[in-house]
């Protein structure tokens, strides 16, 4: 268990800046997930912590010790790669024992360690196999076993599950969660799968374009995204965005007009900045309800006429894609089944309190105050 501190850590490849200076502190025993789209610099940041990539600016501290220029093996970190990266010429046992042998540990200790790791990861029957004779999930378990026996201060994972099929991914996700509970080490986990991040992490670091967009507990990022990128990245299906405009604003409240339907306008509480001009409004798929035209809506509910584009029924949940006349279709998530079909006219009912509002630059100027309506 150790604390990992990044102080103004930046990275350039030649003249190309891929990571702006990053400050981050991972507490001992914490599970932190780096999420972000492809090319956002997650792997690069992780590899700088591991010592596999040189640090262009700033300092890396592990357990309070400055390791910016230390060799990877001197940092007390272990890393699990997306590609497993097993040693193909060694069997499972030797793969796991390799670093202990390099460290010249006594044979009996090595054997005990390897067998214990194999037990933890249910690899006991596979120790004599070569990596070529293993399935993807087994290979990834060997890679994790290789990391465990080092008793690292920090575990680093770079998309360890993305080569596995969906079912196996769920199973391995649970195993990694169990591992963290059992050994309690500090873990940093890179993924572009936000489900993994939400379920595993104590804290999520959302990266985009080489910069941290937001850091916080998974549900914090979900409920109060600090900008449009995080709002769109965290949550599945992703948040709907509707272009809108501030038509009149005071410190106490503003009027907004949506570029949707017949230009519905409505009032909201105070925005952080209430300049008139274009904004975008975000609403989670589960915060929209659909009903057939006719009934009287509850007071304060916004109703936007919509045309059903398509319906996806998954049994326990249904996704309806509706056209409200804005640039993109809106996704509506409802429990169970809905009695609508493609081409139907309906009304999309939204509580204005469930709107997030982002300014033209994407910064959040109002977070939703209502908990998303459950259906």
């Amino acid at each position: 268990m150790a604390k990992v501190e990044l102080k103004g850590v930046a990275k350039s490849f030649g003249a190309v800046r891929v990571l702006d200076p990053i400050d981050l502190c991972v507490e001992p025993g914490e599970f932190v997930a780096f999420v972000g789209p492809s090319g956002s610099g997650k792997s690069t940041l992780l590899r700088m912590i591991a010592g596999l990539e040189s640090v262009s600016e700033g300092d890396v501290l592990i357990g309070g010790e400055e390791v910016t220029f230390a060799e990877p093996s001197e940092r007390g970190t272990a890393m699990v790669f997306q590609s497993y990266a097993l040693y193909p010429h060694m069997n499972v046992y030797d793969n796991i024992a390799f670093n202990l042998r390099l460290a010249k540990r006594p044979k009996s200790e090595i054997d005990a360690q390897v067998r214990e790791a194999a037990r933890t990861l249910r690899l006991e029957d596979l120790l004599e196999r070569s990596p070529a004779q293993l399935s993807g999930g087994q290979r990834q378990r060997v890679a994790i076993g290789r990391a465990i026996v080092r008793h690292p201060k920090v575990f680093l994972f770079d998309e360890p599950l993305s080569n596995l099929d969906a079912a196996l991914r769920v199973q391995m996700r649970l195993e990694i969660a169990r591992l963290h509970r059992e050994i309690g080490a500090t873990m940093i986990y890179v993924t572009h799968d936000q489900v993994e991040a939400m379920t595993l992490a104590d804290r999520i670091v959302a990266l985009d374009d080489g910069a941290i967009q937001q850091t916080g507990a998974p549900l914090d990022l979900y409920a109060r995204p600090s900008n449009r990128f995080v709002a769109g990245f965290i949550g599945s299906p992703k948040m709907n965005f509707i272009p809108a405009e501030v038509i009149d604003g005071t410190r106490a409240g503003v009027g907004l007009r949506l570029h949707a339907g017949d230009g519905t306008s409505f009032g909201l509480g105070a925005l952080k900045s209430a300049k008139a001009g274009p904004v975008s409004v975000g609403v989670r798929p589960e915060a929209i309800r659909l009903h057939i035209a006719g009934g009287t809506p509850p007071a304060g509910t916004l109703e936007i006429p919509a045309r059903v584009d398509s319906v996806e029924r998954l049994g326990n949940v249904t996704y309806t894609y509706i056209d409200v006349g804005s640039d993109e279709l809106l996704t509506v998530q409802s429990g169970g089944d809905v009695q609508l079909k493609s081409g139907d006219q309906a009304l999309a009912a939204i509580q204005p309190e469930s709107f997030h509002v982002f300014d033209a630059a994407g910064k959040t100027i109002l977070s939703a105050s209502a908990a998303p309506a459950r259906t």
Partner: protein
Amino acid sequence: MATTARIFGNKRVGFGQWVIYALIGIAGLFYGTPLAWLFLAGTRSGSSLDSDPPFTFGSFEQMAQSWANLASFNDFQILNWALNSLIYSVGGVTLSLIACIPAGYALATSDFPGRRVILILTLVAMITPSQSIVLPIFLEMNLIGLNNTYLGLILATGFFPFGVYLAYIHFSDSPPKGVLDSARIDGCSRYQLFTHIALPLARPIVSLVAFFSFLANWSNYYLAVVLLSDDKIYNLPVGLTALVSGSGALTNLAATGMPIKKPEVILAAILVILPVLVVFLIAQRFVRSGMLSGAEKG
């Protein structure tokens, strides 16, 4: 395999297929004929070589006789030359492996000043005909007193830029970067990275470089004939050439009295080729891919 089975199983040999087989057949005949002739000719007597049709099989007795004639020359000096050839080849192969494999690895995996220049020089050296530097090598060996020694020829043949280049190509994408990264995290030093990870996975390229180096050394004539002047340390190509030209077997000069005639010369040629075939058969079992399977997803 599956394709072959399908083609033959369903008798669906189309016109294109026929063209390919015909071409293979013609090429096989064209290039295989001289070899077949050589091995057959080894069994024939001088008069048979002169008068019988080209592909006549002689007899094994005749072959034994030719062999006895060849062997009797100068107290079985051929065996001595063959041993010398073995020494030169083993020495040259060992030295070139020791130099080529790490050099290729370093060129492929690290970025050091002068790397590009060395790569270009390697390519230049590779395409420079070795004959063109025989004289400077001779002068150099003369200078350091290694002319006409085993060590001299071995040292000279240890320079094998083709091997460096082969190793460089191999190590450019093997082992996969992820495997090297995880070995670094596991605590491998740069040196251990090579000995524990890269080298054990490089068996195919080591075999390939060894084979090509052996081929070059075993049939090394030009450099050997310049550097070696004492017939005791001749290698096979030089020795046999000396023997053949000395006996006048292939010219129409008056017989020299030596029992070295055409059959013996043919046998000598077989003697040179055979070890290459054997070494190739051994080496090709190792020159196979598949070493890396299991390292990564797949």
